[in-house]
C-alpha cells in the first residue's frame, strides 16, 4: 500500500492531465465565443480535432530532416512529464521527489528548444520568424520564471512543489506582498508562454505577428496532433501550477482516504474552471500587443519577480 498508492495516484494524474488538457482549451474557446455572442464549437472539439488529425496522413516537406519528425514527440513527452509533476489533486505523487519547479522550467525549456529547432528545420521564412520571436520572448520569460521560483523558495524553504503547496496552505505564510508580486509575474509568464492574447493570438493562422502558429505551420497529421496536445497540456500545466501554489486548498495529503482524493479532484476541476473563465474574460477584454511591446510586458514580470525576491530578502534579514 505504501508503494502502490503513490503509483496509482501518479498514474491517475498522468491520465487526467492528458484527458483534461484539450477539454480546457475547448472550454476557453467556448467561453470566448459566448462572450462575443457567438455560439462556438462544443467543448470536446479540440479532442475531435486531435483524433481526426491522428488518422490523417502526415505530409513532410522534402527538405525536412529527422529532427523535424522526432520533434513533435519530444515536445509532447517533455510537456507531459512536466504536467505530470505538478500536484493537481493530491500531493503524494510517485515522482513527487523530482517535482521541482526548476526541473519543470527546464523541461518546458527543452520543449521550447525543440519546437524552435523544428520551426527552423524546414527552412521556410515563416518558421524561422516564429522561432526567433519565440526565443526573444523566452529570454525574458525564463529568467522571470526562475525569479518567481526563487521568491517561492525563499518563503517555503524548498523548490519542491508539494512542500511549497503544504507551506502555502498552512498558517505560517502570513501576509506577504511578495506573494502578490509573484502571482502577477507568474500570470504574465503564463500568458506569454502559452501565446495567449496580449502576446500572441492563439485563434489566428493569418496574422503576421503570430509566434506559435508560425513555427508549427508546416506540420500536419499525427505530428500536428502531438503539437496541439502539447500546447493544450502546457496551458493546463500553468493553470495547475498557479492553482497548486496560490490556492492549494483541497489538495489530498498523504494518508488520506478515497473521499479526500475525490474531494481534491472536484476542487481541482473547480479551480481549473475558474481559471478558464478568468482567462476567457481577460482575453476578450484586452487587445493584442505589438511584438516589440512584448519585451516591456515581460519586463514587468521580470521586475516583479526580482522585487519580490528583494523584499523577501529584507524580511528574512530582519
Amino acid at each position, binding site marked *: 500500500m505504501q508503494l502502490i498508492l503513490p503509483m496509482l495516484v501518479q498514474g491517475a494524474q498522468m491520465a487526467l492531465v492528458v484527458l483534461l488538457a484539450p477539454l480546457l482549451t475547448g472550454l476557453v474557446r467556448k467561453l470566448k465565443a459566448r462572450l462575443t455572442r457567438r455560439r462556438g464549437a462544443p467543448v470536446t472539439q479540440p479532442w475531435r480535432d486531435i483524433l481526426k488529425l491522428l488518422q490523417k496522413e502526415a505530409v513532410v516537406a522534402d527538405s525536412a530532416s529527422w529532427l523535424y519528425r522526432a520533434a513533435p514527440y519530444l515536445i509532447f513527452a517533455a510537456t507531459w512529464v512536466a504536467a505530470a509533476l505538478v500536484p493537481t489533486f493530491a500531493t503524494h505523487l510517485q515522482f513527487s521527489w523530482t517535482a521541482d519547479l526548476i526541473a519543470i522550467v527546464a523541461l518546458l525549456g527543452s520543449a521550447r528548444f525543440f519546437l524552435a529547432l523544428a520551426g527552423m528545420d524546414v527552412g521556410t521564412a515563416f518558421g524561422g520568424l516564429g522561432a526567433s520571436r519565440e526565443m526573444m520572448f523566452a529570454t525574458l520569460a525564463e529568467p522571470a520564471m526562475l525569479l518567481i521560483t526563487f521568491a517561492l523558495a525563499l518563503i517555503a524553504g524548498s523548490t519542491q512543489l508539494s512542500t511549497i503547496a503544504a507551506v502555502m496552505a498552512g*498558517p505560517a505564510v*502570513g*501576509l*506577504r*506582498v*511578495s506573494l502578490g*508580486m509573484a502571482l502577477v509575474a507568474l500570470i504574465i509568464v503564463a500568458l506569454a508562454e502559452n501565446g495567449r492574447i496580449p502576446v500572441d493570438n492563439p485563434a489566428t493562422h493569418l496574422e503576421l505577428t503570430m509566434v506559435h502558429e508560425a513555427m508549427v505551420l508546416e506540420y500536419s497529421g499525427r505530428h500536428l496532433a502531438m503539437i496541439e496536445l502539447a500546447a493544450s497540456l502546457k496551458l493546463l500545466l500553468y493553470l495547475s501550477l498557479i492553482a497548486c501554489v496560490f490556492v492549494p486548498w483541497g489538495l489530498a495529503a498523504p494518508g488520506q482516504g478515497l473521499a479526500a482524493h475525490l474531494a481534491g479532484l472536484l476542487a481541482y476541476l473547480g479551480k481549473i474552471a475558474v481559471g478558464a473563465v478568468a482567462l476567457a474574460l481577460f482575453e476578450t477584454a484586452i487587445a493584442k500587443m505589438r511584438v516589440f511591446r512584448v*519585451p*516591456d510586458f515581460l*519586463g*514587468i514580470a521580470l*521586475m*516583479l519577480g*526580482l*522585487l519580490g525576491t*528583494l*523584499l523577501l*530578502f*529584507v*524580511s528574512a*534579514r*530582519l
Partner: protein
Amino acid sequence: MTHLPLDFAHLLAGSLVLLSFLMIYQDRLSALLDVFAAHAVALSASVAWQAHLQQAPHLYLTALIALLFKALIIPMALSRIVQRLRIHREVETVVGTAPTMLAGIGLAALSILLMMRLTAGADPLAREDLAFALTVVLLGLLMMVTRRNAVSQVVGFMSLENGLILAAAGAKGMPLVVEISVAFSILIAFIVIGVFLFRIRERFDTVDVGALDEVRGERG
C-alpha cells in the same frame, strides 16, 4: 500571530516601492499622475499604520497631511496644469524603459544592502521602513534624471519627498513642527515650480528641459 504588525508594515512599504517602480515604467503623463496619487495613498496608509504601532497620535496628522496634499490637491493641480499645457497625451522617455528599470532594480538592491548593514541591531520595523524609504528616494532621483518633461520631474521630486516622510515615520521622534514645515515647504516648492513651468513654456513653447540646454548653447 505576532508577525502580523510587521507583515502589514512590510506590505504597505513594499507596495510603496512597487508604485515607485510603476511610476518609472509609466510614460504617459496622466497615468503617471494617477500612479503618483496612489503612491501618496500608500504612503499615508503606511504612516497611519506606524502611528498605530508606535502609539504616536501626531503621525496620524502626518498621514492626513499626506493624504490631503499629496493624494488629492497636488495630483489634481498637476493634472490641470497638464491639461492647460496640452501635454496630457505626450509620451516621453529619454532612456528606454528597460535600462531604467534595470537601473532602478540595481538602486533598490543597493539601498537595501546598505540599510540592512547600517541599521543592524535597530528595531526591525524601523530597519525595514528605512530600507524601503531609501529605495523610494533613490527611485525618485532616478526618475528626475531620466525624464525630460518638467512635469514628470516634479512628480519625481514629490515621490522622493514621499520616501523622506516614510523614513521620518519609521524613525521615532521626528517633531511635528519639522513635519509641518517640510510639508509646507514642499507645497511652496510646488507652487514655485508650477509658476516656473508656465514661464518655461511661455519662453520656449515647450516644457521639454532639453530646450534649456540649447539656450545655454550646450547642444548644437
